[in-house]
Every structure is written in structure tokens, then in C-alpha cells.
């Protein structure tokens, strides 16, 4: 991997001790995740005393089979994909626009609006649920994925704008000014100068927003009926009176895998910037 080679040379030589240290931490870190996996493949009566308990040790795919048989996973997966992808693309496109406006343009109410937008991040979804529920009912949006996408996207701007704007702090203003001298208007400056140079924060917004919308539970459960995403469907596994943690673990694995893949794919953009840079150094 060329990025790796280039970067390993970053501080003169790569440091094996650092890799070992991070590796040790990482292995410590996944102990609970190993727990989830082990929980999903052992019978419930064995793991009720802890998944690490090896007095008896049986492997079984019962929980996986039960979850697969009982829940229409494929359709829910498709709904989840639709919801997450749309709710992720919206802030990926619009948050950089807003961040750019807040950061580089002069207009009235700039700060007031910025403060309001950013503070909205504290707003808990419990607060949003009931007023929007009433609104969606009036508009006939119940059981329509947009009932979930709109608030998912709307609430994401708070942190997404902050995130992109924070990276813009170190954006070379000269680049903007040069474009301005060339007669480039404020909107064109965004699309041709700022946007192509903001892939790192945009990738970060994408990863985080995808993860959060994918795992989002409250809004889908309340607003959707038949069009249920994976999390909402799997939340039903956990009963009020019984604790079938083996199936809950299966649900957790099924839902966590996708955001992880997204992370692995998108995180390349973090190193992409660096490799292009050293790559062009001929």
C-alpha cells in the first residue's frame, strides 16, 4: 500500500514499539466486542454466568438462526441502507456549504446563526419526537422514510457544520483570495476551491453520520411502521420480561458490521490527502 509506505517514512523511520503499543491497546479494547461475538454463538444458559465462563462450552448458531428466521432482515437492511445513505449524503453536501458560508463570507446574523446551529446538537431526540410526530401525522409522512431522514439530516448539521468549519480554520485564505482576484464569485469559490480540498472533513462527516443514522433507534421506532430499519426491527428482540442476550448480540453484530465497513472504506480519505501530497513530489 503506497500510502502506508510513504507515511511510514514520515518521521524518518517507522517505530515498531508504537505499533506494538497500539496493538496492545487495541486487543484490550476489543475484549467486550469478543464478548458480544462469543455471546452470540453460545447457548443462553451458559452465558448467563458470563461469556468468559468455560465450565461448559458449547458453540451454537441457534441465536443466528432464530434471528434470521424470525425477522425479515433483508428488507430491513435495504430500508436501513436507504435511510442512512440519504441522511448521510445530505449533510455531506450541505454542511460544507454552510461551513464555508459561516467561515469565509460576511453577512448579518452570521454569529447568531452559527451559535444557534451548533448548540442544537445538545437537543435530545426525545424532545424532537412528539412535536414532529404530530407534524408528520398532519402531513401524512408516518411510515415514510423521509419522516426519519429529515430530522436525522436536520439534527446532524449542528456538529457537521462545526466539524467542517473547524478544518477550514487552517484552510489557506490566500487560496481563496487568489481565486477572488481571478474574479471567482463566492459560490464558485466554494465549489472549485474549498470543496475539493475538504475531503478529509467530509469523509469524517460521512463516517460519523452514517454510523449514527444506522444505529438511530428512537425516531424510526416512533415514525415508521412497516418500513422498519434494521435497528428498529432488532430492538424488538429484547423483551421486557426476558433477556435473550444471545439474540441481542446477533443484532448488535449485524448492525455494527456495516458502519465498520463504511469506516474502513472512507478512512482512506484521511491518508489519501497525505499520499497525493507526497506522491506529487517528483
Amino acid at each position, binding site marked *: 500500500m503506497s500510502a502506508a509506505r510513504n507515511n511510514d517514512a514520515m518521521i524518518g523511520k517507522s517505530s515498531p514499539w508504537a505499533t506494538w503499543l497500539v496493538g496492545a491497546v487495541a486487543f484490550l479494547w476489543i475484549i467486550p466486542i469478543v464478548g458480544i461475538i462469543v455471546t452470540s454463538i453460545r447457548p443462553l444458559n451458559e452465558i448467563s454466568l458470563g461469556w468468559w465462563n468455560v465450565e461448559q462450552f458449547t458453540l451454537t448458531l441457534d441465536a443466528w438462526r432464530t434471528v434470521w428466521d424470525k425477522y425479515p432482515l433483508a428488507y430491513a437492511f435495504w430500508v436501513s441502507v436507504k435511510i442512512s445513505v440519504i441522511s448521510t449524503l445530505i449533510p455531506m453536501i450541505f454542511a460544507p456549504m454552510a461551513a464555508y458560508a459561516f467561515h469565509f463570507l460576511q453577512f448579518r446574523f452570521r454569529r447568531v446563526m452559527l451559535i444557534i446551529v451548533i448548540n442544537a446538537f445538545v437537543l435530545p431526540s426525545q424532545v424532537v419526537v412528539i412535536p414532529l410526530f404530530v407534524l408528520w401525522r398532519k402531513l401524512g409522512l408516518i411510515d415514510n422514510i423521509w419522516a426519519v431522514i429529515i430530522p436525522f439530516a436536520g439534527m446532524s448539521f449542528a456538529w457537521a457544520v462545526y466539524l467542517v468549519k473547524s478544518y477550514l480554520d487552517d484552510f489557506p485564505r490566500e487560496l481563496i483570495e487568489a481565486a477572488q482576484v481571478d474574479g471567482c464569485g463566492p459560490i464558485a469559490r466554494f465549489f472549485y476551491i474549498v470543496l475539493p480540498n475538504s475531503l478529509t472533513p467530509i469523509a469524517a462527516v460521512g463516517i460519523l453520520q452514517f454510523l449514527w443514522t444506522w444505529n438511530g433507534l428512537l425516531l424510526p421506532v416512533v415514525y415508521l411502521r412497516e418500513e422498519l430499519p434494521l435497528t428498529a426491527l432488532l430492538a424488538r428482540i429484547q*423483551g421486557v420480561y426476558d433477556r435473550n442476550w444471545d439474540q441481542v448480540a446477533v443484532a448488535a453484530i449485524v448492525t455494527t458490521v456495516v458502519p465498520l465497513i463504511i469506516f474502513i472504506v472512507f478512512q482512506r480519505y484521511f491518508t489519501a490527502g497525505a499520499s497525493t501530497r507526497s506522491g506529487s513530489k517528483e
Partner: protein
Amino acid sequence: MKSTRYRFAKTVLAGTVLSAAAGMANASALSGDLVMINWLGGAQGEMMQKLEDDFVAKNPDVNFRNIVPQATGDARGGIRQVILGGEQADLLINTWPAFRQELVDADLLLPVDDVWQENGLDEVLSGAWRDLSVIDGSNYGVTYTFGDRSGIWYRTDTLEKAGISAEPETWDEFKATFAPLLENDITPMSVPAKVWAHAEWFESLLIRVAGVETATKLANHEIPWTDDAVKTALRKWQELLQANCCDEPNTMLATDWDNSVDAALKTGDSAYVLMGMWLNTRANQEYGETPGEDYTIMQFPALGMGHDDTSMVDAKELNLLSTVKNKEAATAFMVYLLSADATAIMTEYGLASPSANADTSLYDPVIAKSVEEVSNAKSLQFVLGDLLPGDLGGEYRVQLQKFLQDPSDETIDAVTAALEKVAADAYP
């Protein structure tokens, strides 16, 4: 004054199996959507699904739809969201009498007296079960399942190991079992005090110390929490704690009901656990144990204070919402849940039915025993924690945690005073 009657005088289950299908006469042309707010998950959710499927099989033109509210934590939160959001539904599954009262006060429930009459439910549910859901003289629900909450669960081999040959029946006998249990490294009582389950001991003690009337008055705040009845019940519990019944306070506070049940019914690290009938499903299906053989249930010990013929129960009912659109199908489903077919499905899942149509011979020994205890009790008390209005219910559990941390006379005074303070503000 609210004449809510949570208490009900007895002769519950002795009902005769008369005209079982009295209500099925009009099972002709039901159709359309039937919408139920259904928050049951896990095994009980499966059971309800099976009941719905069976109902639809019998009434193929009915389109049964569930509204599943958000279920994290207290299901009432999700149900209120659904209702406030203006969702139309016909039926609601309810297990909290205080919540039924709240719904009635907000004009969200319809009385079902007419359903009761048209379908001859008096024959199927004895008067005590009807009284359970009566508010201000009108009946607002049909109880479809109930459970003993004064039953103490234990593994038979645990008592054997400690050389205890007979179930302790009296308070002193019960306490006398602690010493041999402790000698065998067995904690006598597993009290999961993390969230709510520690209140079970207090509640059964309260009705056996002071009777069901007193508990009802307390629930309606007609007597203060500083009443002697409350303090006496806490002092009884203090006796148990002084006899080393339990783990360290902090261990109790760290233990949730499931781990506690593991300790009593799976590993045998502790002997007794006081909890509802859902343990039967857990022990039977999850631990793979045989009810009546590996584990069983005994009634709360007799205190000899004149109220030993009482029992704590819980129940689930169906309410008819005022947003009902398909009343025919809704009432038909209510009646169906009391039918022999429905009760047979419930029995499969280890639940007891109050219906006279239920075939009690299908019950496993543990359900049978608990049903018998409930039938033998002269008066029944609904779980107190579920009768208290919102804030008080939470405060009640927190104050009992404080009691467990330091079960002294001073704490008893402080805890009851603190509860009285919150209660003063909690009732409308």
C-alpha cells in the same frame, strides 16, 4: 374521592366452566383493520403474536395491526408518545392500574360494561377480576392473565443441601432456615435492589403486616407513608437483614433481577428469590430446568399478624381506547383472549389465565401451585409500585435502596418521611 378499587375480595378462580363459548355466538362477520398498541417483546410478544394469528385465522376478514411503541425503559413513555402523537388505535395492552386511571382521567378509555354483558363475561371472569378494572363504577378492562407476586422461588436441591426438609411456612421457620443455609455458603435471600425488584419484599411484608386495605389506602395516599404499618413492614425486613438474609448492601444495589434469579435458580448460590411468574419461562426455557422438580415456588411465610390470607398479584388487561374505529373486532378479541383456545396458547408460554375457560390441567406444577395460592388467598393486592403515580413510584424504589444501605430505625424514619414529602405533591 376516587373509588378506584385495586383490592378485590375473593373467590376468584372457583368459577364454573359454564357456557364457555357464550361470547362466540356473534363470531360471524368481523372485518376491517384492528389496531392494538402492543409493547410486549420477547416471549410474551411471541405469545401475543400467536394469539393474534389464531384470532385472524378464526376471523379471516380482520386485518390485525400492531403499533409497537418505543420500548426502552418504562413502556408507558412510548405508549404516551403514540397516543399524544394522535395515533388511532382500538386496543391497548396495559399492566399498570395507575396508568389506566391516567387514561380514564384523560378520557382516553371507553368503559366495557356493555362488552361484559353482551358476552356474558361474568360467567368467564369472576367478580373479583372485574372489580380489578373498575374505576368510578365503570369497568375499563378485561384481564387476560395474572401472576402471583408473593411466591418465593427456590431450587429444591438448595434446601436439601442445607438439610431443610420442609418448606418454611411461618416467619420464624423461614428465618430459622438462614443459619443452615449460611453454613453451606448459601445466601438465604437474593435481593436484586438495582432498580425495582427489592420492593417486592416490602410489598408482601406490608400486606401481611397490615392487610390489603392498608396497602390500598397507601396507594391512594389516604394514609401517610409515615404510618406505623409502613414502619412495621420495614422493621420486619430489618429483622431479616439482621439475620444475615442477604449480601452486602452494595452488592444488592449492583444486582439486577436477572442475575439474582441466576443465583437462586441456576447456580444455587442463594436460596430464595421473590418475583413474578415470568421466572417460570426463564427457568424452564433458558436454564432447561423442570418446573416442580428442579425448582418450585412457595407462598410468602405467615407472619401471624392476622393478614396471612393475602397475596400480591400482577395482571395484564386489554383496554378499549376512545379512538376505537372497529369496536366489533376489538371487543371480539377481548372475548377471544378468555376463550379455551387462547388460554391454551398462554399456558404454553407459562402464563396463568383468570378465565373459567382455562384448562387448569394443562398447567405445569409451578403455575398450578401459584394459581392455587392466589385462589386460596382471601384478598389480593395489586403490585404497589405499579399503583403509585410517576414520581412517587421512582422515589419509592430509591428510598427503599436507602433503607437497604443502612437498615436502622433512624433510616426507617428518614425514608418514610422523605416518601411522604414526595407523595404530598404527587397526587392531583
